């Protein structure tokens, strides 16, 4: 724990001399059925180079045609982020050579983004921070390189690389924040909260599956330090490869500490791209390019301008779903949650699951306990978001209902949850298949109790002699015999009755 302490104090120490300014560039793969400029499928995990065609392979002569749904999704994202929607804009070519980019230019947007000037409010520690949105624009994703040879599977030291273009051309939305100032020590948490809120919005809009672990949501974190008392921002670095919410926070913290150490020693920060390393929590310098990149942007001549009709944009605005912040406000008042209770659900990423469980008929307290308790444990063990567990809120509500009715004990309820996750079948199905219901047939229990007494005569004698706690052994024996399907309290009452002890002594 020493390193932890050192890091915490180093971090606090940084903030006595510097103020962080940060910005985030988030790339989101849209969940359209087909690619941005061709009809190839966007489905994840296909065999290499099976979702490719003349357009997304950049074959000579092939031409792009815009996917209408991608335009609509991007505008809805812009509207949800309070952006202005351009009345006229164009795509541009961003020219640079890279083997995963089939045309060696990326069709993107340059000085005419589809959405500009918006904001997103995020809550951190009870404080609301407004993050300005600079722009939201649409572009195409690249293919994927696999590096072969060398020790690390990384690009450096590899002998050669293999390219799969299935991902090339998947619509990609880039959401760029304005620089965020004045958040002090909270900066990394604000950054994390922003990405979390953005992710929830995108999920609510249904425009992306926002799976950071599959790369459908990716984050670049720009960080700089301003010396206390100065008004001039320091040189920023751009940290790429930040693939989880936790990493957003860690990457910024470690970058702040790294930059402060350089500045303290009188050094200068080099404007560069850095890569976050999950294992160490540190950022590492990307190879600095031998010369400045010159992307030679110009309007994409193979496409015509976009001019979203104002009435259509208003229709899209009117059709936006209830966004997470509004939903949280409503849930708080409807379900009488405290601010802390809501916050813990937000932190666990379980707000929707919780609300849907309540909507399916479960009492709020029980729903909260299950999602923040057993289900969160399972999610942690599997290293996934709790919402990613393969169990629906309706199924959880069913388990809660059965536990409430005494059909399942709490322990059995957990077994049911385990079985649902394991088999992918429904609650009733696993109960029937595995015979998990509480045994409530008293004659069967009486039989089992008599058998337990007969098998343990000395213990039965102790109980009869007044040593009531000894009955626990007999209860355990019955529970074992009924494979945990009996309610322990009922078993105990039957045992005491068969042993001739009526009622529980006060």
């Amino acid at each position: 724990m020493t390193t932890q302490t050192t890091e915490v104090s180093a971090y606090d120490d940084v903030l006595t001399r510097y103020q962080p300014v940060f910005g985030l560039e988030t790339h989101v793969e849209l969940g359209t059925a087909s690619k941005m400029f061709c009809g190839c499928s966007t489905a994840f995990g296909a065999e290499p180079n099976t979702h490719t065609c003349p357009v997304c392979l950049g074959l000579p002569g092939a031409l792009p045609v815009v996917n209408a749904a991608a335009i609509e999704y991007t505008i809805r994202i812009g509207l949800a982020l309070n952006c202005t929607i351009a009345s006229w804009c164009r795509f541009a070519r961003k020219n640079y050579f890279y083997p995963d980019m089939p045309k060696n230019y990326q069709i993107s947007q340059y000085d005419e983004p589809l959405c500009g000037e918006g904001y997103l409010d995020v809550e951190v520690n009870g404080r609301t921070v407004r993050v300005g949105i600079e722009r939201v624009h649409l572009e195409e994703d690249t293919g994927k390189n696999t590096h072969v040879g060398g020790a690390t599977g990384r690009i450096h030291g590899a002998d050669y690389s293999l390219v799969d273009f299935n991902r090339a051309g998947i619509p990609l939305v880039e959401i760029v924040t304005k620089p965020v100032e004045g958040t002090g020590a909270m900066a990394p948490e604000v950054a994390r909260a922003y990405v979390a809120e953005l992710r929830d919005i995108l999920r609510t809009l249904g425009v992306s599956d926002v799976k950071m672990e599959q790369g459908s949501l990716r984050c670049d974190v720009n960080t700089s330090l301003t010396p206390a008392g100065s008004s001039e921002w320091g040189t920023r670095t751009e940290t790429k490869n930040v693939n989880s919410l936790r990493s957003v926070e860690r990457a910024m913290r470690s970058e702040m500490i790294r930059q402060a150490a350089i500045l303290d020693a009188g050094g200068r920060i080099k404007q560069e791209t850095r890569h976050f390393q999950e294992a160490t929590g540190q950022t590492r310098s990307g190879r600095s390019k031998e010369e400045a990149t010159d992307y030679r942007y110009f309007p994409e001549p193979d496409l015509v301008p976009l001019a979203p009709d104002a009435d259509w944009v208003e229709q899209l605005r009117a059709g936006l779903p209830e966004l997470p912040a509004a939903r949280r406000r409503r849930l708080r008042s409807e379900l009488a949650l405290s601010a802390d209770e809501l916050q813990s659900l937000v932190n666990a990423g379980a707000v929707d699951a919780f609300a849907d469980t309540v909507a399916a008929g479960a009492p709020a307290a029980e729903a909260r306990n299950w999602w923040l308790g057993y289900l969160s444990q399972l999610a942690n063990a599997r290293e996934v978001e709790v919402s990613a567990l393969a169990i629906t809120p309706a199924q959880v509500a069913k388990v809660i209902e059965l536990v409430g009715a005494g059909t399942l004990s709490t322990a059995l309820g957990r077994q049911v949850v385990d079985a649902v996750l394991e088999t992918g079948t429904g609650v009733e199905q696993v109960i029937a298949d595995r015979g998990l219901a509480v045994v409530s047939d008293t004659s069967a229990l009486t039989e089992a109790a008599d058998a337990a007494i007969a098998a343990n005569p000395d213990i039965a004698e102790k109980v009869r002699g007044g040593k009531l706690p000894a009955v626990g052994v007999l209860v355990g024996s019955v529970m074992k015999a009924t494979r945990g399907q009996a309610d322990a309290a009922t078993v105990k009452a039957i045992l005491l009755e068969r042993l001739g002890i009526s009622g529980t002594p006060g």
Partner: protein
Amino acid sequence: MPDDRSTLTRDEVAHLARLARLAVTEDELDLFAGQLDVILGSIARIGDVAAADIEPTSHAVPLQNVARPDAVIASLPRDEVLAGAPSVEDDRFRVPQILGEEE
């Protein structure tokens, strides 16, 4: 402005060749430096047209909002995708060691 542009140097030509991924030879550097200079000189008069308030034309016939419905169309068979490739391994395009930055 192009009008008072100094002549294109060998170094500038070399820089352009790097940007364009052309491994030009030393002889070509000299040849191209001279030729590009002549060409650029004769197109420099483009700057003569006072055009501050003129809208640029990027398409001869104005069209806008051309899009297709979000429908999946069959991709190419993979053997056809890979058929023209100089080098293939594990159904992927094989390329030599990449020295550039990780993307």
